[in-house]
């Protein structure tokens, strides 16, 4: 026995024609905007925008450019690249946006929306298929890790948007190497990426390499004249950011490699972990590979990650795809970058999937895996394009099943977990609450690098903080605090502590002019006696 139903073929083909005429990019934009705003509202209502310690640091860097004891572009510092902070400037001016973190959310949110549109366009460029491209967008934009991070002032979304934009135009160039405008656009967005995160440096290096490789000739001259010209055009624009940053380090901080050599650099921090024997991927290629593989997997979603692997394999084995190796190489840039940096000890990741239980922390920097979400979305979309309807139904099922895994708690939103309970989470010491309640006015001396407490959550205006970036006030305040600051905040063994409280003589001098008004195991707060 069977129940039968017939539909005239004309109706079906009318529906299909209507769907192909749809301007999906507007729909993508609208959906992305709704998702972004919803994510930001949710994070704002639950007070999780500034969960990451780094999130506050990024906000404060931008804030100091406009409001500081010594405002100016020099406050951008020399470790983190400046683009995300520069983009925050129009919003950070307003204290409410600064303290709530929304100044950063706006930048990340806009980056998210633009990324969504261009990952859709990138897939459409390769597949010429709207449904596959829309599926790519869905995989990208509904990723919970991405939705959370785009509501925060972290820098990942800034990098992702420039990575996608640069890749999109670069792929346009690869598909038509006479398209110099696309090459310039790719270079420009590459330049922006180089000023967002160091991953961007690797991106432009790879793009330059690809240009060289596609123009290689097997004759006496290794590269064609056209290739040479395009290479110089590209490098001039794309690498300008790197050159500028090195110049910045040299001029402002006295060392072009300040970002990697200074005591505040990631490399220096990693040395501490290495000394403890807790830098597992250092000089271990297999572990470096596994750490980043698993981190990517936990960000993309375990089911979708396997689909991504199948899609990548499918793409590489499809001889009909133009420049498939170059494009795949480009999309996998973040993966290679992080494996290399883990191997070199320039970065560190802890993930509970493989970090030993004996380690002090087992959740740290897992957000680095976000960078693989664009690649995953692209290859999943490609697989969708290449599949018949039964396989597409399976892909849709797996996409929905992934949400099921989040819902039952099998998979966690690791970027949120890291910011909430991982090593990346901001501390909320009691001293913060005390100072918020008792601060009235006056300059506050504190070592911002050690993140004693949250400035955004307190009442202290940024221009009343004296920190290492406020030269010469910092040096003056360390030499004679009683003449320059009303409050001194010390955390055990931070720079202020070492200069004012580590010896009896120093303590004596401090107590002469200041009274201790707050005590805890780690943090002491002093108020100038003359002001009491």
């Amino acid at each position, binding site marked *: 026995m*069977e129940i*039968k*139903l*017939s539909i005239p073929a004309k109706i079906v083909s009318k529906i299909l024609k209507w769907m192909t005429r749809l301007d999906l990019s507007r729909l993508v934009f609208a959906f992305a905007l709704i998702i972004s705003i919803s994510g930001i509202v949710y994070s704002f209502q639950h007070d999780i925008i500034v969960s990451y310690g780094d999130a506050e640091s990024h906000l404060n860097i931008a804030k100091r450019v406009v409001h500081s004891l010594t405002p100016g572009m020099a406050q951008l510092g020399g470790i983190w690249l400046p683009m995300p902070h520069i983009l925050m400037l129009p919003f950070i001016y307003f204290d409410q946006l600064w303290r709530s973190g929304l100044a950063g959310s706006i930048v990340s949110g806009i980056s998210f929306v633009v990324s969504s549109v261009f990952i859709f366009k990138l897939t459409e460029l390769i597949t010429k298929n709207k449904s596959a491209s829309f599926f790519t967008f869905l995989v990208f934009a509904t990723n919970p890790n991405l939705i959370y991070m785009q509501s925060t002032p972290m820098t990942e979304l800034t990098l992702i948007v420039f990575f996608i934009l640069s890749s999109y135009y670069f792929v346009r160039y690869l598909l038509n190497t006479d398209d110099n405008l696309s090459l310039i656009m790719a270079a420009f967005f590459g330049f922006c990426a180089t000023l967002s995160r160091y991953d961007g440096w690797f991106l432009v290096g790879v793009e330059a390499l690809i240009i060289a490789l596609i123009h290689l000739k097997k004759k006496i001259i290794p590269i064609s004249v056209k290739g040479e010209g395009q290479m110089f055009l590209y490098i001039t624009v794309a690498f300008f950011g790197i050159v500028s940053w090195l110049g910045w380090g040299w001029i402002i901080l006295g060392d072009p490699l300040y970002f990697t050599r200074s005591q505040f650099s990631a490399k220096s921090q990693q040395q501490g972990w290495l000394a403890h024997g807790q830098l597992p991927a250092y000089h271990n290629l297999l572990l470096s590979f596994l750490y980043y593989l*698993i981190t990517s997997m*936990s960000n993309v979603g375990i089911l979708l990650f396997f689909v991504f692997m199948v899609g990548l394999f499918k793409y590489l084995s499809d001889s009909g795809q133009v420049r498939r190796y170059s494009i795949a190489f480009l999309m996998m840039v973040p993966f290679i970058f992080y494996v290399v940096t883990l191997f070199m000890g320039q970065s560190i990741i802890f993930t509970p999937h493989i970090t030993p239980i004996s380690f002090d922390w087992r959740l740290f920097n897992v957000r680095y895996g976000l960078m693989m979400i664009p690649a995953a979305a692209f290859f999943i979309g490609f697989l969708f394009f290449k599949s018949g309807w039964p396989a597409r139904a399976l892909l849709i099922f797996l996409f929905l099943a992934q949400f099921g*895994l989040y819902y039952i708690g099998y998979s966690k939103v690791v970027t949120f977990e890291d910011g909430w309970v991982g090593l990346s989470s901001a501390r909320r010491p009691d001293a913060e609450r005390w100072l918020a309640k008792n601060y009235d006015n006056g300059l506050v001396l504190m070592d911002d690098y050690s993140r004693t407490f949250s400035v955004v959550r307190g009442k202290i205006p940024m221009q009343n903080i004296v920190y290492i970036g406020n030269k010469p006030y910092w040096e003056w305040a360390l030499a004679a605090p009683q003449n320059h600051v009303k409050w001194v905040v010390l955390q055990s063994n931070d720079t202020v502590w070492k200069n004012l409280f580590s010896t009896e003589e120093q303590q004596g001098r401090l107590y002469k002019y200041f009274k201790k008004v707050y005590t805890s195991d780690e943090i002491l707060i002093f108020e100038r006696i003359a002001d009491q």
Partner: protein
Amino acid sequence: MALIILPLLMIAIYVFTIKGVVGNPVPLDFKNNLDQAAKPLELSPERGRFALTMSIVENGTFALSQTLADAVYPDVGYYGGNFYIFFAPGISVLAAPLYMLGSKFNLSQVASFSLSAIFAVLNAVYIYLISKWVFKLPPWAGLFGSLVFSFGSTAWAYAVTLYQHQATTFFILSAFYSAWKYRQKGKWSWLHAVWVWSAAGLAVAIDYPNSLFMIPVLTFFSLSSINITKYKQKINFSFRPLIIISSLAFVILMVIHGYYNYVHFGHPMRLSGSIVGYKAIKEKQLLGTQESKESIDKLAENKNPVSYFSEEKFPMGLTILTVSPDRGIFLYSPIYLVGILGVILAIRKNRSLETSILVANILTIVFLYSSWGDPWGGWAFGPRYLIPALGILSIFIAFSLSYVRHFIFRIITFLLFIYSSAIAILGVLTTNAVPPRIEAVALNSGYNFLHNWIFFKDNHSSSVIYNTFFYKKISLLYYALPIYSVILILAVIFLFILPRLEKRHGN
């Protein structure tokens, strides 16, 4: 003919290797006797299931007595003043008739354990049927696939004791085959449809994760009920309502199961695995105290069986199940590398819905148990959780053999089979109580089949036939050799002789 001879040989081999003791054990026989290594109730999973069977038959109840609860500890839960095993009750219920029959011959325990052997024989038959009829593979390839699963994998060690693995494999394979028969729209489609649903319901009753493992087969079943045909002027959709009508079988089984849960645990959806453990109560000394009920309820609130599965455990779990020295399938049964090759070949050359469903089934099992907090399966012989996946992968061994016809390939397959079946026989004749490496190191014990080798050398066997009739007469080695030889002879016949005969008849 093969379908008669092979099962008979299998039954004979299972008889010679079934774990047990002569007699009808009583609860007091469990502790410090039958729960020792190489004894039939050496581990809590079979001890618990057998205890429940005993309870059902002897006492007419699903609750365990205090003596049995102490014997089955720690896989015992506590609810409403009663003790229950943590496991789903299905295996114990199915074993009850065999227990009753066996007790008449002073073999209640042995007869109960034969339940797994019955399922194992049926699994071998289904592997053959699916290879031959669904995928049109040569019969000799299907026979070899059956042989590999039965005697070349760690499934053998669990065909002679009371675990859920062979039964799970049976329900998956039989449901798949029935769904395929249903798809053919034959005269008995309705019966096959009823069986698919029944298998799903029974599978859940024997082990709760089976609710996930049956999804691919049920998907296959559903897709087989829908047909879309494109013509020039129209598109036809057709739907077979038999799938809905036959689902009554599943509904009835679920209602019975829900009623069981309601009567014993207070709610139809409360599973035995979610009640408070006897271990927790014992450690907190809550039994018999006035505050106990509230405290026990509080302990139960914290227990969520779903939380035992998590993504964080996946990488380590997958490593343990595949390549670890204590449970890695490719260490115990490297013949399954041929199965992996078969999966790849099948995806490339036979990209049918049937292939996809079976591959999806394997992946579902591997995925779930890699995410489980205890991929080792406690103390166990080999990766026991993968047994249902091995049953399906054995079909893909048949694929490999039918696509790769080189003689050298069959030699390699045979060599891998020699090794795999040697490991399998080592396990089935000795003990399943092999600790994970992490525990073994602390106990200064072995942690894989090398631990079994020590038992083997000492003639320390779990086989009821050996212990009853041969222990004082011959060594375990001489007992194993004829069994092993029969298996290898069968392998030679299936791999080398039958293909030659097929070729000759083909020419």
